[in-house]
């Protein structure tokens, strides 16, 4: 008899748009996960970790969602090599908490530590070190996957390589990730040697980026409201793990956030107008001017460097009940930066501001399939859901990205049209063939997968 209890529950991603009702189970033992697949009664199935995909990647209407949070056992660790074997529901926060004091760091971290390793593989997440270390899956040697026919299959670069290839960045549609082996990187202490440089325009961003190759971590905040000669101005941050003997402290915000998470919290929805063109413009001006001209060097704790927004719990509620989304794309390198300029112009013309915008140049490493990272400049833009004008703007941005040979990130998406998506990923037919071979009955589905024809067909 199965021991899973399926509860009717409404789930949403980090953008809180859309929200979808499903039958949801939360297994705590390995056997219960296997049961979950067995007692699905014909319904499609999907895993859900910490819900940090922004859109509909982890949602499934009229289906069964398996919460992986309680499958969070760390199974083995080799301090000689840094290899960690753990279950899919272990979060990067737990890995950091456990291993930073022992001199290890996750090989790749995104902008939040509240993601599971299962989600990190399914989205093939990237971080500030992509130009040096590639993406998350570049540090994975083995994934244990529950596949559609009920078997548990181990895959990796050397074992069932096609299944592994399709699972990395595969948005959870090849099977349910049970566990993995990932290699943690050595560090000497929790601190980052950081340099921040005020860049006055897009041209300067690319100059600084080009000369920052010797820094393992780079990213730049981007003011995407200001136009004219200052288009693309921002604050470029570059850093590396600090050498032995470095000391430092936490930022005020992080210390407050640690001492009283409830204090630095956004427990209720902000009003829908809170982030509008005017407030965003004002914020951008202040944030930019606050940084002195030129360069500032500092030693910072890894938390404010990697996860500045984690200090404010539920910051996603700032956007109000309407929710928000992130438009994240990468385009191939182009000396004239035409696509980037067109995108920024398009946003300005629309009158829709992006409160949070970042830009970074990815490195050469590319996984393929439907994994996101590819060489070239990447931009991520947050937008409050503003109805048709926003979706029209994003359609125009799609056009620019597509014309430049770029693509968008499925982990953040909730709206890209299928025909656009299909042109963005040339290896999609190959990916689909592998996926379908392992799951011909489309057991694993998601709202995103249905929308884009990845699994479950048109809806």
């Amino acid at each position: 008899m199965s021991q899973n209890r399926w509860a009717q529950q409404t789930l949403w991603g980090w953008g809180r748009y859309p929200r979808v009702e499903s039958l949801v189970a939360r297994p705590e033992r390995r056997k219960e996960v296997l049961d979950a697949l067995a007692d699905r009664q014909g319904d499609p199935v999907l895993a859900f970790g910490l819900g940090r995909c922004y859109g509909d990647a982890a949602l499934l209407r009229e289906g069964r969602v398996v919460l992986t949070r309680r499958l969070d056992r760390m199974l083995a660790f080799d301090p000689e090599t840094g290899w960690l074997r753990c279950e899919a529901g272990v979060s990067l926060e737990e890995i950091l908490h456990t291993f930073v004091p022992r001199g290890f760091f996750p090989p790749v971290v995104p902008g939040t530590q509240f993601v599971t390793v299962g989600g990190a593989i399914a989205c093939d997440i990237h971080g500030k070190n992509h130009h040096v270390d590639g993406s998350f899956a570049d540090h994975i040697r083995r994934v244990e996957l529950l596949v559609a026919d009920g078997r548990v299959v181990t895959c990796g670069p050397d074992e069932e390589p096609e299944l592994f290839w399709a699972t990395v960045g595969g948005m959870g549609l090849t099977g349910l990730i049970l566990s993995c082996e990932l290699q943690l990187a050595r560090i000497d202490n929790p601190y980052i040697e950081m340099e921040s440089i005020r860049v006055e325009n897009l041209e300067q961003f690319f100059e600084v980026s080009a000369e920052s190759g010797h820094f393992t971590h780079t990213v730049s905040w981007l003011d995407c409201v200001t136009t004219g000669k200052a288009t693309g101005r921002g604050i470029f941050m570059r850093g590396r793990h600090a050498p032995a003997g470095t000391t430092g402290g936490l930022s005020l915000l992080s210390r407050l956030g640690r001492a009283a998470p409830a204090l630095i919290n956004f427990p209720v929805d902000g009003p829908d107008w809170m982030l509008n063109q005017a407030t965003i413009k004002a914020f951008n001006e202040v944030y930019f001017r606050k940084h002195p001209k030129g360069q500032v060097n500092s030693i910072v704790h890894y938390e404010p460097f990697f996860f500045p927004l984690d200090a404010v719990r539920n910051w996603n509620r700032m956007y109000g009940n309407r929710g928000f989304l992130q438009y994240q794309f990468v385009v191939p390198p182009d000396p004239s930066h035409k696509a980037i300029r067109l995108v920024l112009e398009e946003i300005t013309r629309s009158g829709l501001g992006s409160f949070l915008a970042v830009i970074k140049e990815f490195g050469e490493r590319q996984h393929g399939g439907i994994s996101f990272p590819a060489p070239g400049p990447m931009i991520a833009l947050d937008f409050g859901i503003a109805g048709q004008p926003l979706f029209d703007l994003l359609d125009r941005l799609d056009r620019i990205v597509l014309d430049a040979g770029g693509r968008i990130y499925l982990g953040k998406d909730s709206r890209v049209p299928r025909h656009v998506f299909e042109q963005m990923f040339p290896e999609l037919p190959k990916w689909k063939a592998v996926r379908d071979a392992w799951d011909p009955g489309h057991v694993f589905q998601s709202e995103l997968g249905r929308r884009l024809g990845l699994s479950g067909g048109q809806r």
Partner: protein
Amino acid sequence: MSVLILGATSRIAHELAHRYAENGQSVFVAARDADEAARVAADVGVRTEGTCASGRFDATDFAGHAAFLDSVRETVGPIEVAILAFGDMGDQHASEGDFEAARHVIDVNYTAAVSICELLAASMTERAAGSIVGIASVAGDRGRQSNYIYGSAKGAFALYLQGLRNRLFKSGVHVMTVKLGFVDTRMTYGLKTGIPIAAPDAVSRAIFDAQRGRSDVFYYPHFWRGIMSVVKAIPEAAFKRLSL
């Protein structure tokens, strides 16, 4: 110094294993599903860098209890703290129509606990030291139509622990009864209630502290003591008409 945790695949037991291991004690976790117990032990070992062994424990294999405890002692030495976290809620409805189902619930929650506790009491009395922690339930405080088979077994367990505490007091052996209200575990998953549900790691910290403080009867979350005193105070003539 070693700590034995029985029923280790429950989330509370898993968290408790962490608490003792990070406190430097050797922990042995056991459960009917030995593979799962091994995963719990591995997790405790990796996260705490402490010692955590595991093994198979079948609560209803009464005849095997003595040998099981011997094997635990062989692995981690004398048992300083024993925590009984195993249990089976069963299915009240099934238990009403099928005596075997009811007996299973009684055996797991009560008979097995008596068998193990008597064996533990014998060795702890000999050493005049030790602590037995039994995880009972607020369901054992008053019989209700919705879960009285499970409730009566847990209630009997609490009564048993009361007697054992009385008997072992002069030997210096500590016996603690833990009565848990709603905790965010498999048992309460999907439950819709206005009463706050406690996080397992908070529960484990509270039990850990209470055990070290040699508490006798410990409700967690604490407000359940109040809730249950009200529930117990309702006259039977009225209570029998309620559907709780």
